[in-house]
């Protein structure tokens, strides 16, 4: 008999598309090899705590083998004409598209995020990054980095667990397009999609040693970034580890880019499109269970609409579907690891202890696996830990403001500076605030929108260097009259991705494409930004700030 209420029946995506081996080796010099230490680690499905596969802990000798393979491959790879390198990248992008369902299911299994996200966000973006940087490979002389920009050499890349394959794409695609070779270490809780990517490289016929994947824990990562024959280090992850890496690299000739934590402010004015703002807030903090470095984890709402917005937000949160990440109707999946769950739990408890009011919708959490209900805290002040520390979980801190100046002051009052969002129907206010906010990405009337053409990166303790867009080429290029300037170091200018997604808005930028420009660079024409004088001023300020 048909049910009497509209309750969605389970709609699980099939796991059968993913063929997992019981254990995986290291991908070095074009083939999978055993590690020297012979010790294996387990990777779990966070939704069930089921062991998915074993993988190899790479030791120093293994890392050395990988770096040497990358060094050997560098000379012939970098000598290829750009159009030839592009062929491989286009091929990789195509294979990713063809295998996108398999990779989406794999990513959901290993990471715990919903299939809706891996299918509709992660995988399309991964393919888009490879397509985008494939297009740059034969146009580097026209990218604004001098007439003959050269690759840097061997890139050591260490990526986090929150977007395993997407962060790989952000790192590998620009490195290969510019003629570098890479050794990449995926996160210890999510190694599988990188290992599948190794297979894709093989199938694409990528020359041996151009991409090497070494798996393991923090010790592997430390060995990789500390290896003397590495020319460039790119890290995405926590600020604490980022600082360690900066210390390791200091005093060497290695270039460094860091993309670290954040405590993004999502600022809602009383004239905002409220229904869409609610969606943006939800997307800002519950996308990927809030395990996003640029998450809008602080909601700054104008006092005059606080109650109305909070009512609407709570009503919307009650419709979020938390549970089996492989179910196509799941909105919020599992937390990636027990360790991360502990941290979220601890910080949420601190929020309560410090006097903020905690609220979660009624939702039944699965009994096995790592789960945390969508949570919001009201009555939060700047003095609370949950307003200052990165929680990296589905926990939103709600603060209020009265005037635009107060909103900016509170938004900037953080050691981080990665992302911010502005919700208002007033275009001039968007432009003004985007200049004042010390965040690498500023979204207008949207949040968590990504596009390979848009530079992404942080201010302050959120790191330095930009990934994505034309800017994302620079960390992997040397030469062009800028040889004396160390590319990625802390002295690097901070480009601001004044991201907007116009929809006819006065901000004039579209599709999350940043009208980003690097301070003090000869790239005067900031395409896409309407107000030349204003953007000129912004550039000046950015250079003063650093």
């Amino acid at each position, binding site marked *: 008999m*048909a*049910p*009497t*209420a*509209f*309750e*969605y*029946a*389970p*709609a699980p995506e099939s796991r059968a598309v993913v063929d997992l081996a019981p254990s995986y080796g290291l991908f070095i010099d074009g083939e999978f090899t055993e590690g020297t230490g012979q010790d294996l680690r387990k990777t779990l499905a966070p939704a069930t705590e089921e062991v998915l596969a074993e993988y190899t802990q790479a030791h120093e000798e293994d890392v050395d083998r990988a770096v040497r393979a990358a060094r050997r491959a560098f000379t012939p790879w970098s000598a290829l004409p750009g159009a030839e390198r592009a062929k491989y990248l286009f091929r990789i992008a195509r294979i990713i598209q063809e295998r996108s369902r398999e990779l989406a299911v794999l990513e959901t299994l290993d990471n715990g995020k919903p299939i*809706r996200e891996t299918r*509709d966000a992660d995988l399309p973006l991964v393919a888009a990054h490879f397509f985008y940087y494939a297009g740059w490979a034969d146009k580097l002389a026209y990218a604004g980095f001098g007439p003959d920009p050269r690759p840097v050499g061997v890139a050591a890349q260490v990526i986090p667990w929150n977007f395993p394959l997407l962060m790989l794409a952000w790192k590998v695609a620009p490195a290969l397009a510019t003629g570098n070779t890479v050794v990449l270490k995926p996160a210890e809780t999510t190694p599988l999609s990188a290992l599948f990517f190794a297979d894709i490289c093989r199938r694409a016929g990528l020359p041996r040693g151009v991409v090497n994947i070494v798996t393991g824990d923090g010790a592997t990562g430390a060995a990789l970034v500390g290896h003397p024959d590495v020319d460039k280090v790119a890290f995405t992850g926590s600020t604490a580890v980022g600082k360690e890496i900066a210390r390791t690299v200091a005093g060497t000739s290695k270039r460094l880019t860091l993309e670290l934590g954040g405590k993004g402010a999502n600022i809602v004015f009383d*004239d*905002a*499109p*409220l*229904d*869409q703002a609610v*969606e*943006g807030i939800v997307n800002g903090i519950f996308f990927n269970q809030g395990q996003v470095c640029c998450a809008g984890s602080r909601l700054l709402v104008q006092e005059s609409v606080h*109650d*109305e917005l909070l*009512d609407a937000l709570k009503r919307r949160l009650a*419709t979020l579907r938390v549970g089996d990440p492989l179910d*196509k*109707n799941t909105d919020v999946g599992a937390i990636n690891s027990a360790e991360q769950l502990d941290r979220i739990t601890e910080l949420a408890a601190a929020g309560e202890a410090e006097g903020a009011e905690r609220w979660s919708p009624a939702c039944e959490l699965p009994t096995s696996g790592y789960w945390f209900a969508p949570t919001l805290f009201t009555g939060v002040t700047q003095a609370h830990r949950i307003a200052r520390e990165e929680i990296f979980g589905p926990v939103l801190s709600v603060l209020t403001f009265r005037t635009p100046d107060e909103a900016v002051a509170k938004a900037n009052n953080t050691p981080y500076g990665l992302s911010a969002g502005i919700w208002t*129907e007033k275009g001039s206010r968007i432009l003004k605030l985007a200049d004042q906010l010390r965040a690498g990405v500023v979204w207008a*009337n*949207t949040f968590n929108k990504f596009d390979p053409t848009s530079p992404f990166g942080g201010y302050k303790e959120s790191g330095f260097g930009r990934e994505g867009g034309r800017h994302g080429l620079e960390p992997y290029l040397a030469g062009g009259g800028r040889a004396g300037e160390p590319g990625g170091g802390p002295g690097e200018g901070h480009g601001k991705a004044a991201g907007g*997604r116009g*929809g*006819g808005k006065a901000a004039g930028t579209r599709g999350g494409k940043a009208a980003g420009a690097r301070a003090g660079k000869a790239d005067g024409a900031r395409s896409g930004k309407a107000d030349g004088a204003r953007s000129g001023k912004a550039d000046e300020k950015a250079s003063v700030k650093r």
Partner: protein
Amino acid sequence: MPTDAASPDAVTEARTGDPTGRPTSDAALRRLLHGLPGVDAVGLEARAATLGTRSIKTTAKAYALDLAISMIDLTTLEGADTPGKVRALCAKGAAPDPTDRTAPRVAAICVYPDMVATAKQALADAGAPGIHVASVATAFPAGRAALDVKLADTRAAVAAGADEIDMVIDRGAFLAGRYLQVYEEIQQVKAECGTAHLKVIFENGELATYDNIRRASWLAMLAGADFIKTSTGKVAVNATPPGTLLMLEAVRDFRAATGRQVGVKPAGGIRTAKDAVKYLVMVNETLGEDWLSPDWFRFGASSLLGDLLMQRQKLATGRYSGPDYVTVD
């Protein structure tokens, strides 16, 4: 919007400052309607698209298909309509699936005013007097006639036994900012309706912007509409998921502000069961159970019923049939 229950008049008063609670000028209504929160087009469309990715299977699908059938205003609005055609449509509405009498009946038969009496009789003959007869009126579909003609049109339909009146607003007046004229027209048509329910059609495709759709929704609800309806089905752009989602948000907010619940009817262009289920998902996740009934949500459609029945047969038998196994009209 205030969240405590109040009468529509109180809302009007609060927003217009007019102590009688009745808007007295275009300016007063403009202040009210233009004071509503704006709509971000990209965000609205993204939300509607995301809801469209819900995967509705097995028991949920069976529930949704039957619910959708029971919400259909089975429609024929052609110059070539004859009593015979209308009788055939009524027979289909009363027993949609000749091979399976458990299929639910449709909500209403929607015709031009001159066919109302025919439809009433045909439904009685088919043993389904519970199915409503809805009649378009007020110089449908353009709405370009003198007010007394529109009122007479409505009167005739009601006199012939129409249970529901689907009126069109004067889009020209709305776009020119003559909100008071639109408001008063709706009020007067409502007065002619008596006990018949009034659905107010905006013709979203001609209002063009989402801000306009939100304003038209509030204007119609304030003037007394029982239902708000997207389109006539006679222009290039008819019901769309984002436009309908916006109207769902409007009725939700209106009930929160006034305590009065208003129904929503997307019409035109919804032809497949898959599309219909997406609309039901939108209702479910925006408004919840309170609106998941033919009393509060309708589909204005004709060919949709055939696809719903085919999907229903597929679910019951495990096999796809084909258009030869459902009736043509």
